[in-house]
């Protein structure tokens, strides 16, 4: 019945009278009894009449459970071909002579690179790849392309740096990929206002280089190659977040192209605003499912005049955590508070990547900034005192820039030294970068139990945590044939975080890999609200289908 009605299509009285519902039920029943016919007509007119009367909303509910939607219908082969023709026309109009392969590409190489990466924890099925990769060059082009895709119902996966980790950009519907990476310019730097407007394809490392000339910084520092679009889409953060906050706190305004091609700007450029809904935060973390971000105005900070690193090993993770707690309760503002566990430290030692040998114990890496040496020294003294009250074993402190670099280098090589160590035993070794966050007081127990569980399952692992935010990553090494085992311990870890009032992802996002956990974390009703919002903003469900939550009742994945 639902299906039948949906097929009535646009709610015009004429369509109702012409009633196409035969096509929905059965192919033209020959000469059916007039009674049945009229019954069907009556049913049709009941529903139709009702629907027509309430022009705008059919539902009176705020949420949309998955079992109340029908499967989305996307473009077939011909429609896709037509859409691509139309996109080509747009590009040709905008640039009469151009190398088409640079902006619309269907080579296998491009398809592959836009489907999966080494680091991804969740991988595509063999045929889950884009049919085309499209590289628009301006907000207007993105808009024109989306208008076409929306018209033909072509599924669209937006991509920038391709460094996301949970199968975020798997082309589950074999549509197109819109790669924003050609849009990588700085549009305007406002030094006095400490903000900058950039295109969404700009990589954070490039931005950091650009800003360092002005002694400024944008604090979000996720994976290599990540770009502003993907950073916003994932609400990314990193080592700087305990000081400057995650992505959403550092964005003033976004330019977004909606599913139907409409271009909106979420805000002007003031530092704060209470004008209307917080659309910034709606798009930040929406993983490309609500719109394509093409420009962003970002908050900037002045680089600390002086920044030093302290490295403090502790007897136990609990001691390290207590120590962090005492810093925070004392109102200390450290620029980074990172924890590396004993295994991580021994891994770094084994790698020989740094010039020092480290104590193989849970260790805090702290960045301490200030406007002059006196201020920094005064903080360092306090950190030292508080740490020793919580069983610190040692206190290494960099006295100059060189030493600062050297001490921090250990934090920098953490991930790679884990991989390298794994490759020593098995060259085909894989690494699972996990991500969960809990309230800080629950972190020690959470970490101890997680480490124990992974070890009991016979897998090697190291651990780094953005401990100031209660956000932890276990790097789990597994051989290709141990995938299921790795998956099991990761699932345990995430469920444990949820049980401790935490979240299934502190910074990487949900993608395809964590949909089930999102449900467990916030509950069915909250997810049903998300789905309701999604389907109202993207009624044809073309934008990054199947991510964050299910949009198709017939689709079944274990996650």
């Amino acid at each position: 019945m639902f299906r039948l009605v949906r097929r009535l299509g646009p709610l015009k009285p004429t369509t109702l009278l012409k009633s196409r519902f035969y096509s929905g039920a059965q192919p033209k029943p020959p000469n059916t009894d007039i009674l049945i016919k009229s019954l069907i007509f009556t049913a049709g007119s009941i529903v139709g009449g009702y629907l027509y009367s309430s022009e705008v909303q059919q539902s009176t509910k705020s949420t949309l459970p998955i079992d109340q939607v029908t499967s989305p219908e996307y473009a077939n082969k011909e429609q896709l071909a037509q859409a691509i023709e139309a996109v080509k026309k747009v590009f040709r109009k905008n640039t009469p002579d151009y190398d088409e392969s640079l902006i619309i590409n269907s080579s296998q190489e491009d398809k592959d690179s836009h489907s999966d990466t080494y680091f991804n924890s969740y991988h595509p099925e063999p045929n889950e790849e884009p049919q085309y990769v499209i590289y628009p060059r301006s907000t207007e082009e993105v808009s024109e392309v989306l208008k076409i895709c929306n018209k033909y119902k072509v599924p669209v996966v937006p991509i920038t740096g391709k460094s996301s980790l949970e199968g975020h950009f798997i082309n589950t519907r074999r549509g197109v990929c819109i790669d924003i990476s050609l849009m990588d310019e700085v549009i305007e730097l406002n030094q006095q206002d400490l903000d900058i407007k950039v295109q969404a394809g700009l990589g954070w490392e490039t931005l950091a280089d650009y800003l360092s000339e002005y002694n400024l910084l944008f604090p979000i520092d996720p994976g290599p190659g990540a770009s502003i679009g993907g950073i916003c889409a994932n609400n990314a953060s990193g080592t700087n977040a305990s000081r400057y906050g995650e992505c959403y706190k550092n964005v003033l305004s976004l330019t977004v192209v909606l599913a139907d091609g409409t271009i909106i700007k979420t805000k002007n450029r003031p530092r704060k605003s209470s004008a209307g809904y917080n659309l910034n935060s709606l798009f930040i973390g929406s993983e490309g499912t609500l719109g394509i971000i093409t420009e962003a105005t970002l908050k900037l900070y002045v680089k600390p005049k002086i920044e030093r690193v302290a490295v403090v090993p502790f007897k136990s993770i609990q001691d390290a955590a207590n120590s962090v707690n005492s810093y925070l309760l004392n109102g200390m503002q450290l620029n980074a508070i990172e924890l590396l566990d004993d295994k991580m430290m021994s891994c770094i030692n084994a790698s020989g990547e740094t010039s020092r040998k480290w104590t193989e114990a849970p260790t805090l890496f702290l960045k301490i900034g200030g406007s002059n040496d006196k201020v920094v020294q005064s903080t360092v003294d306090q950190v030292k005192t508080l740490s020793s009250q919580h069983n610190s074993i040692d206190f290494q402190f960099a006295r100059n820039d060189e030493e600062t670099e050297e001490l921090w280098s250990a934090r920098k090589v953490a991930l790679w030294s884990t991989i390298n160590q794994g490759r020593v035993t098995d060259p085909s070794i894989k690494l699972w970068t996990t991500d969960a966050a809990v309230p800080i007081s629950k972190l020690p127990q959470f970490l101890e139990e997680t480490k124990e569980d992974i070890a009991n399952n016979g897998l090697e692992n190291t651990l780094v945590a953005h401990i100031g935010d209660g956000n932890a990553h276990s790097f789990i090494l597994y051989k290709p044939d141990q995938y299921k085992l790795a998956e099991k311990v990761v699932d345990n870890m995430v469920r444990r975080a949820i049980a401790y009032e935490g979240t299934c992802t502190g910074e990487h996002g949900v993608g395809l890999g964590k949909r089930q956990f999102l449900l467990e974390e916030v509950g069915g009703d909250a997810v049903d609200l998300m789905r309701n919002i999604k389907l109202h903003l993207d009624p044809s469900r073309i934008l990054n289908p199947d991510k964050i939550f299910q949009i198709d009742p017939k689709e079944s994945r274990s996650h």
Partner: protein
Amino acid sequence: MFKRVIIGTGFLTTGLLCYQYGRTRPHSSFIPPDMFPSGSTTSLPKISPPVYANDSQFHQAINKLKDILKEDQIKDSKVEIEYHTRNEFTPHEPGANDKPRVVVYPHSTEEVSQIMKILNDYKVPVVPFSGGTSLEGHFFSTRQGVVLDTSKMNKILAVNYDDLDVVVQAGVNWVKLNESLKPDNLMIGSDCGPDGLISGMINTNASGINASKYGAMISNVINLTVVLPDGTIIKTKQRPRKTSSGYSLTHLFIGSEGTLGIVTEATLKLHPIPKFETVIVGQFPSLLDSTNTVSQIYRNGIHPNAIELLDADMMHCINYSGYFSKEWDEVPTLYFKIGGLTPTMVEEQVKVLKDISLKNNCTNFIKAKDKEEAEELFSARKNAFYAILNYGKNEINEDVRLWVTDIAVPLSKLSPVLNEINTMIRKSGLQSIILAHAGDANFHCDVFYRESEKEKCEALINEMMDLGLANEGTSSGEHGIGNGKRNFLVKELGQDTVDFMRRIKLAVDPNRIMNPDKIFKIDPEDDGPY
């Protein structure tokens, strides 16, 4: 043939009947929910006016409420109605009929949910209400429905010291909350009018003096419990400090002014009260000198806990009030709070601050000698509002009123905008003061007017708003849009952006019962100018 006509008329009539039925029936379950309007935005002319409960449906709904609520939870006395109709601060008055018919006081999230289910079934408009201190007609009962007052839900549920967060019911007053946290040296990050409650602050994304340091409400909330218009209860997150799990529903509700759901509980971030803090006052010959000082302080990596700017007129009011032993120069004046872990850290910052101020022609640089003096100095800022009212009543007119604006612009535009505003005001012949949260370049130009000058004042305010928007600013830095600034929101963000917000609203609240007519229009027949 005859048969066909009969059948034809038959289903036409059925169709018509059902059309009527559909219009009036409160809700239905046989409609396919995934039949969504196309496109991503909803423009006003495309929708029909909302249809709300008629009198008899309204009374049925109220009777059902009476079944679940105690007598003292459901009120319609004159006093109650009047209190929930307006406050004295709102320049745009509610319409003559814009009054609630009934006020309900739920005690728990579950009660709110039960209430909302009934109200949604009967399509009764509902205005959420907490402290009643909002300034733009946020809680006007434009549709004469029910006011749902969450102020009785005022318990502090848990203080998690080790996690630096606090779980509260939404009706807690922020001043009281801070008082109860003070013995543990903790505070919440946002502030607003002294009688504001957490739920109101969440719904206006409030901020104030502390925002340049701790951010607005949006930076200070960890999770919310919200009752959706259809009664569904959701909790937006658990209690992690940070998360990337799905849409940020927490932030969707912050600043939504009661148009998307009722906030019943919240977990807020806590901050340690700065161990050492001092107050600095700097007086400057011009606005530009003062704003240059602010921007250079930031450029030097110094983040004061507060940076407030009071203009010459405001300083005049303060002198006039006689609250202080000291007579101030009547020039633009900056008030700073500088905090740190140790006295050295405070001192070091003060040195830099002084240096920068003097370079920018600061004529009077005062640092509080001790805690008492710090408090006294800052009390000038704290009591500004009363000083203003006092001045206005005595010097202008007993019945003088104050039109409060709330514009924010990029910092570099603050002084040119303020200078231009001063010119506008001189020209208009009205008097005003300017108070700014200078760290965020959010300023309140508050204009005195008598009833007879209302139109003139209104024109002036509108001109000011346009000026702010022309300078990449916002029509509201912290108070919200309410019923009084809807047109400026369109000017600020464009029709498409507002149409997008309207689409979200209609998705979450299909019957349009939640705080109707706020932030943007929801009725094509609404011809209000603002």
